[in-house]
């Protein structure tokens, strides 16, 4: 590892903020939509706000080394709180805002936070609820004043008041604050993030300024990010991705962070902002795609046919004709770029007009002759004249598609200005991935974790595939252990787990190599990393064959109808699975097929739904059978669960990863039934409602068999 210091003394986030305030004074730094209007703060204003807030916190008695818990939705003031805490020499600890009081209590207790900064009354209530057990919380600061008037304010303040106090008292605290900022070093703690972890209690990952700033610099250079980038900050602030993205990279590159009006308006805000750089877990891309598909199913014949045709067409050609030019430098649009764009657009319009005219005429005659079969006809044959030779024809077709389909589609999704988009956190379905790439969105994959300050591997422009996670990020070394586990070492490697030396030692060795806990291998030839599964989850079946549940679950989840899947089979002779249907997709399918249902449970148990899911399972089985290593992971029997797996019930982590062991324990009766011979089973399950109350639901579930492809040859060989 290189122990370098950055030249300009930019060793902390506050220092970077001060630099941006100097060099980018009037450029936008933060925007937030409030009361229907985008409010904007320049770098200079943001710097002043943060300083005032920091002085206000000093006035409240914030000490060096204190932990400041921060919990709320993404808002500029929440980000400022983090930087203000850093200015005071304290450590910000962002928490998941949808955590229930119980989970919050653990983290607050573990880090010993003296200050908690809350977004609104809901969060304050949770803090008050745990305060009778946790006595070290001294000050609660809240942003949204709504509903807060009745509360006891002896140890509670509105953020606006803290800011005002900071401004008023700036003569008293100015020098103290500057002294504290000057004390920050490259190796002092920048932030502490709790990882949800698939097992055990969350662990506090301590990240230093070096970790965050080095990683941000490397990744900003990797994708040529500059101050013109627009991003939407909507991911949980407690997630390392959001910290790197909305604080690390934003401060290093100096781009503007936009905060949505409310979680429910995220998609509208996305459209209004038109981000150029996007970071999202697969489920966001998934739900966007699902909403498009649902809308297209209801569209008129011509629109539907055009959409089908051009999406089919884009699959092969999008990589070639659709991608934005990979830019090495940031620049204002030059005349040449504008001309090129105008030319492309005019070309597209010309062909679009031709296509529509031709189709209108043809459609008219087709409808005259076979009024009922019109849709079938359009499905069967492409709507374009084939006047031009290849590859011209493809180029023109793609331009036409751009005007008619891809452009409007990207526009409704709010993705028309995207230069770089990353999906991370989990594997993404190849169809989904391909869909976005084919319409010209530079969606790439990234493999990382909190302990690495996100980046371990990522895909360079032009080397993007759905089944790999790319090459090691700049500055990161990666090696594969004998058992297949992936190890890495980088400037972003975390300092330690807070108050947990044992875990630190078992995760990071003396040379700085960190175990990811994932099993994978480098693809020969390309040097790209492929991840199979969690290393400890890659188990053995009774006959010694490899058991990789996550791999199978992902294959299942790639079907839009399947929301979650849990596969069992470790130490057994065959695999079985729990399935969660996607209410959105299946509900729509049911509506279109006139299947009546009154509840989730009824829909999940419907024989036709079972038939559909069985078809999906059997398709997965066929593709598994093709891979000799994984062929014994085929699913023999499955059931569709009567309730959605839920983080509130402890079945998923907050980032929606399944907790297989907990599920196996909780639904032991169902697992046993899958391996028994019964056709149905009655069961009762405890559920937790949003407000924390508990209840029970009862159901009788069907157990279904799925056809498997025989793998006799391999068995015989083994």
């Amino acid at each position: 590892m290189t122990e370098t210091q950055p030249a300009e003394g930019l060793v902390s986030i506050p220092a970077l903020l001060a630099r941006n305030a100097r060099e980018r004074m009037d450029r936008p730094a933060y925007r937030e939509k409030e009361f229907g209007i985008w409010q904007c703060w320049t770098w200079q204003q943001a710097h002043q706000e943060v300083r005032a807030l920091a002085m206000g916190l000093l006035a409240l008695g914030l000490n060096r080394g204190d932990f400041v818990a921060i919990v709320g939705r993404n808002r500029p003031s929440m980000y400022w709180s983090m930087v203000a805490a850093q200015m005071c020499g304290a450590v910000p600890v962002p928490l998941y805002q949808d955590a229930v009081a119980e989970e919050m209590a653990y983290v607050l207790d573990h880090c010993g936070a003296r200050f908690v900064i809350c977004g609104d009354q809901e969060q304050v209530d949770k803090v008050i609820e745990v305060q009778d057990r946790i006595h070290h919380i001294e000050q609660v600061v809240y942003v949204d004043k709504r509903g807060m008037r009745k509360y006891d304010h002896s140890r509670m303040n509105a953020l606006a008041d803290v800011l005002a106090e900071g401004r008023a008292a700036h003569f008293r605290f100015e020098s103290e604050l500057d002294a504290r900022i000057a004390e920050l070093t490259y190796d002092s703690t920048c932030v502490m993030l709790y990882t949800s972890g698939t097992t055990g209690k969350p662990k506090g990952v301590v990240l230093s300024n070096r970790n965050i700033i080095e990683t941000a610099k490397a990744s900003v250079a990797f994708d040529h990010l500059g101050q013109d980038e627009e991003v939407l900050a909507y991911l949980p602030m407690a997630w390392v991705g959001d910290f790197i993205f909305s604080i690390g990279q934003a401060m290093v590159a100096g781009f503007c962070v936009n905060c949505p009006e409310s979680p429910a308006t995220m998609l509208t805000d996305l459209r209004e902002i038109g981000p150029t750089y996007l970071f999202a877990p697969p489920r966001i891309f998934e739900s966007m795609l699902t909403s498009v598909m649902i809308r297209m199913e209801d569209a008129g014949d011509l629109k539907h046919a055009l959409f089908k045709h051009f999406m089919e067409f884009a699959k092969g050609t999008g990589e070639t004709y659709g991608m934005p030019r990979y830019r090495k430098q940031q620049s204002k649009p030059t005349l040449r770029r504008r001309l090129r764009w105008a030319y492309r657009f005019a070309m597209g319009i010309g062909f679009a007009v031709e296509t529509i005219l031709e189709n209108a005429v043809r459609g008219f005659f087709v409808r005259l002759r076979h009024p009922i079969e019109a849709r079938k006809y359009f499905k069967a044959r492409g709507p374009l004249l084939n006047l031009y030779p290849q590859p011209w024809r493809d180029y023109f077709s793609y331009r036409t598609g751009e005007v008619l389909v891809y452009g409007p589609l990207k526009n409704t999704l709010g993705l028309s200005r995207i230069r770089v988009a990353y999906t991370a956190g989990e594997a993404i379905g190849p169809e989904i991935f391909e869909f976005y790439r084919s319409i010209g969105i530079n969606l790439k994959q990234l493999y990382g974790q909190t302990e690495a300050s996100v980046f371990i591997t990522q895909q360079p422009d032009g080397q993007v595939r759905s089944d790999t996670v790319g090459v090691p990020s700049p500055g990161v070394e990666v090696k594969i252990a004998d058992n297949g586990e992936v190890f890495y070492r980088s400037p972003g490697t975390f300092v330690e787990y807070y108050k947990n030396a044992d875990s630190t030692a078992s995760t990071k060795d003396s040379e700085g190599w960190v175990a990811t806990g994932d099993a994978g291998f480098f693809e020969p030839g390309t040097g790209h990393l492929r991840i199979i599964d969690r290393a400890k989850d890659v188990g053995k079946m009774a006959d010694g064959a490899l058991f990789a549940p996550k791999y199978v679950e992902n294959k299942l989840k790639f079907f839009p109808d399947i929301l979650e899947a849990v596969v069992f089979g470790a130490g057994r002779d065959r695999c079985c699975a729990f399935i969660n249907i996607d209410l959105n997709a299946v509900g729509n399918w049911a509506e279109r097929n006139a299947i009546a249902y009154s509840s989730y449970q009824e829909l999940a148990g419907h024989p036709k739904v079972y038939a559909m899911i069985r078809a999906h399972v059997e398709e997965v089985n066929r593709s598994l059978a093709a891979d000799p290593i994984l062929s014994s992971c085929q699913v023999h029997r499955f059931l569709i669960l009567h309730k959605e797996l839920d983080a509130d019930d402890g079945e998923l982590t907050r980032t929606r990863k399944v907790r297989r062991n907990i599920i196996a324990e909780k639904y032991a009766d169902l697992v046993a039934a899958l391996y028994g011979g019964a056709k149905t089973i009655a069961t009762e399950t405890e559920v937790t409602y949003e407000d924390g109350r508990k209840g029970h639901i009862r159901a009788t579930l069907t157990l279904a068999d799925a056809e498997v492809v025989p793998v006799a040859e391999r068995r015989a060989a083994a």
Partner: protein
Amino acid sequence: MNAETPVEAIPTADDRKIGPVLMEMKHITLRFGGVKAITDISFDIREGEIRSIIGPNGAGKSSMLNVISGFYVPQEGEVWFRGARRPQMKPYQVARQGIARTFQNIALFDGMSVLDNIMTGRLTLMKTGLAAQSLWWGKAQREETEHREKVEKIIDFLEIQAIRKTPVGRLPYGLKKRVELARALAAEPMLLLLDEPMAGMNVEEKEDMCRFILDVNDEFGTTICLIEHDMGVVMDLSDRVVVMDYGKKIGDGTPDEVRGNQAVIDAYLGVAHD
């Protein structure tokens, strides 16, 4: 506290300020032909309180609300508002005095967006008339901006930002009710009349609505007069409750008093719970 209008202590759940009498109904009797919908009812509403009217179907609750809002004119009795007897008034005149209401059956413009629907709530406050709006463009526009700002605050308050531009016709029932509340709030009323705001809602929607009603009362200091069926909700929300049966008042007081009142137990609650 105000010395001229001494306020005897009214026990409330918290230390919210309850002011002097805002509106007083004196011996109201309302007849429809031969049917007596309301018989000689008197009660008062104090500033800043949440006052509920409960009673079985057909007891005359909605009629009472209509008397307050000026839709019906009682044959007998007087309505006193802010210390003076209110002369017979048209509903829009009543609205100008700062009384807004929602209806038992949703009355919104289905084709219009949520935002435009809420804007209609501000009509009573608009100063420039149509003619002036076309002549004094600049002034009218300034006023429009002002109104829009107020409406946006309410949208934010009721957490309906995501449906701002959606036509009301496409919204589910629970949200429509919330939009109706927003429209009533847009008039910046001092007295808000809610006719069964939670009827037909599921538990979660009811909880949301309760929270909004409490917040409105707390944040804007709006006095609220509420008709509701759900006893749990009424007892939790209200400062004082009027109980009606067959057009007559059979009980009046804090939720605890009403719960203990034998006449009320017999006539309405049937069996005393708890």
